[in-house]
């Protein structure tokens, strides 16, 4: 049922996008002139929207398009024609974006709260621009009313403060208005202020309390319910204290995480992260733990002394991502030959021999 709604929404968006584009093209010259003396912020949005243009039409979700800007081109069959159009619109893009942002902000909330990196960037840029322009307060207010984005990652303290309150109200309205699928997306954003009720919230609070009581609040970087993973309680632990916290999670009778279900690493390009899933048969708790480390030469304590099952999984992470586990009894490559060069799951991995 959500999908039908989505489809309709998308259709509407498509029409809007097409219109906006036509307008943008028409306005191109005038806008270009007007924009020529604009602020420095424009460069980023210009690029974003340029790349986004073709996708916008194809995909019928203009704001979302900018998020997919990097991959956008792949998706298109008729990329070329649109690319030309996009190029034409480039000069006007900034202006168009502004206009579009205003036009879209009311009807299209989801991208604004979505918290995707690329999207966030686009939003941030748009917002910065808005903020700059919004030294004029009346305009800013008009904008912020429909656009919750400042709440998500406000770079400007003032704008944030103003918008935060509105964003919250808007988020509630949006959550109500939107179908279940979208609501999840809203929650998935990093912004934790609007806490959705969850059956697992008391469990998360118990775990967090236990850890804080023992180690202080410093060891926990973040804790939240992951609504995309069946409301999985998640905590982010500092790597310096991770081994002790892990041992505590295992031995504390009220938590008793005696089972290590999963362990794997993720290359976030800015840092490496290892994702653990712990489970207790006695207390029925399930917890996922994320621990960050440096991307190059990153080290984490091995959990093999606590859970023997971590052994091969850590070897796999080492093999494929290059994260070293200190204290591991036998840290060799798990799958690849010992003389293999590099760690293939890293995003910057270059094949030794392209032919292979």
């Amino acid at each position: 049922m959500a999908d039908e709604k989505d489809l309709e929404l998308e259709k509407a968006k498509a029409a809007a996008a097409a219109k906006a584009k036509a307008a943008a093209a028409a306005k191109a010259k005038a806008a270009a002139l007007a924009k020529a003396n604009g602020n420095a912020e424009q460069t980023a949005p210009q690029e974003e929207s340029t790349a986004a243009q073709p996708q916008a039409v194809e995909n019928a979700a203009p704001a979302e398009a900018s998020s997919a800007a990097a991959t956008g081109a792949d998706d298109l069959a008729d990329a070329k024609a649109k690319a030309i159009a996009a190029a034409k619109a480039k000069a006007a893009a900034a202006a168009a974006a502004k206009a579009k942002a205003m036009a879209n902000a009311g009807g299209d909330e989801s991208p604004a709260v979505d918290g995707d990196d690329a999207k966030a960037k686009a939003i941030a840029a748009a917002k910065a621009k808005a903020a700059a322009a919004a030294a004029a307060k009346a305009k800013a207010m008009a904008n912020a009313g429909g656009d919750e984005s400042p709440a998500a990652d406000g770079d400007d303290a003032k704008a944030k403060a103003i918008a935060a309150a509105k964003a919250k109200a808007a988020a509630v309205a949006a959550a109500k208005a939107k179908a279940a699928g979208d609501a999840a997306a809203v929650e998935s954003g990093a912004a934790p202020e609007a806490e959705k009720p969850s059956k697992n919230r008391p469990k998360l609070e118990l775990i967090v309390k236990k850890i804080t009581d023992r180690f202080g609040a410093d060891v926990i970087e973040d804790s939240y319910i992951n609504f995309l993973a069946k409301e999985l309680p998640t905590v982010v632990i500092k790597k310096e204290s991770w081994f002790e916290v892990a041992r505590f999670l295992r031995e504390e009778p009220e938590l008793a995480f005696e089972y290590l279900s999963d362990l794997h690493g993720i290359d976030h390009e800015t840092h490496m992260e290892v994702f653990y899933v712990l489970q207790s048969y006695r207390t029925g708790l399930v917890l996922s733990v994320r621990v960050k480390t440096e991307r190059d030469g990153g080290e984490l304590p091995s959990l093999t002394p606590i859970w023997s099952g971590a052994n091969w999984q850590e070897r796999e992470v080492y093999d494929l991502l290059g994260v070293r586990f200190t204290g591991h009894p036998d840290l060799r490559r798990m799958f690849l030959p010992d003389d293999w060069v590099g760690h293939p799951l890293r995003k910057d991995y270059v094949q030794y021999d392209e032919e292979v």
Partner: protein
Amino acid sequence: MIRTEEMLLNVGPQHPSTHGVFRLLIKIDGETIVEAIPICGYLHRGTEKLAEDLNYTQIIPYTDRMDYVSAMTTNYVLVHAVETMMGIEIPERAEYLRVIVMELQRIASHLVWFGTYLLDLGALSPFLYAFKEREKILQLFTELCGARLTYNYMRVGGVKWDIPDEGWLKRVKQFIDGFKKEWEGYHQFVTGNEIVQARLKGIGKYDAETAIKYSLSGVNLRCTGVKWDLRKNEPYSIYDRFDFEVPTATEGDCYSRYLLRMAEMEESRKIVEQALQQFPSGGEIMAKVPKIIKPPVGETYVRIESPRGEIGTYIYSKGRPNPYRLHFRRPSMINLQILPELLKGENIANMVTILGGIDIILGEVDC
């Protein structure tokens, strides 16, 4: 005076009783294993890396090749993860089709295990009986989706094919009715067999604490008395609608694992039977999903019960058509970790018994 010295023996990777391309380096003193060093990776294809450049529908065939003896459940664990992220509601008919094929697959998978395990122990004929029955399941799957092993049957939002004709459900019913008799026959021929008992009882024994410490799952965990089956404990799909037992044992040896897999076949048969009774007469087999599947930004981790244990999928999505990071928690690989521990001090004749008892699929170990 007998003089013994340690000797290194290489088992595999090309060895039939390693069930694939698993290699084991063992140090033996006479006939006693002093140390066993597993070497994996002969079937490593980098599925997780490949998946980063594919869209979600394109990844499904790769899951067929992961646990190729139970491709339906590996299909499911991927689409289930994406559906969980996107909050897609699956049509009833598709859910029933999924459960029917997954449980038939569990029977087929345990039949492969049953046949080859006894082959490992030196009994040839059970293999023929088991594969005869399994072939009937594969025939049903072929009619349904055109493939014997690599089904590529499930899709995000449902299944690819509806039943080929109304007779298909009848043929499934026919099979499970006939299978009950066959299954009873296995017990008569094999379970009570003195040699089988002598070779399995008390071999490869461990307790619940060890099993949990080594992150074992599935039958390998349940044979120590831990009653844990994700179909019951964290019901996914429509498993909460069926009445079935989770068989457990307390001995923790190869014989109890044998008995549990046999019992699970019967439980799966019961589930299929109930699913056939409840099977909706009409309806869609696909939910309405966008043409380009883009899960929302964020990460998910779901797990289900495969014939080998707890299989999980982790997806980190950036809202694009392809995953930023995809990871499979593969029960075969994690269950295999305990092998060196179990082989220490064992007689070399028990090596294959213990390895086979874990029930690994190399496509899943290496991924």
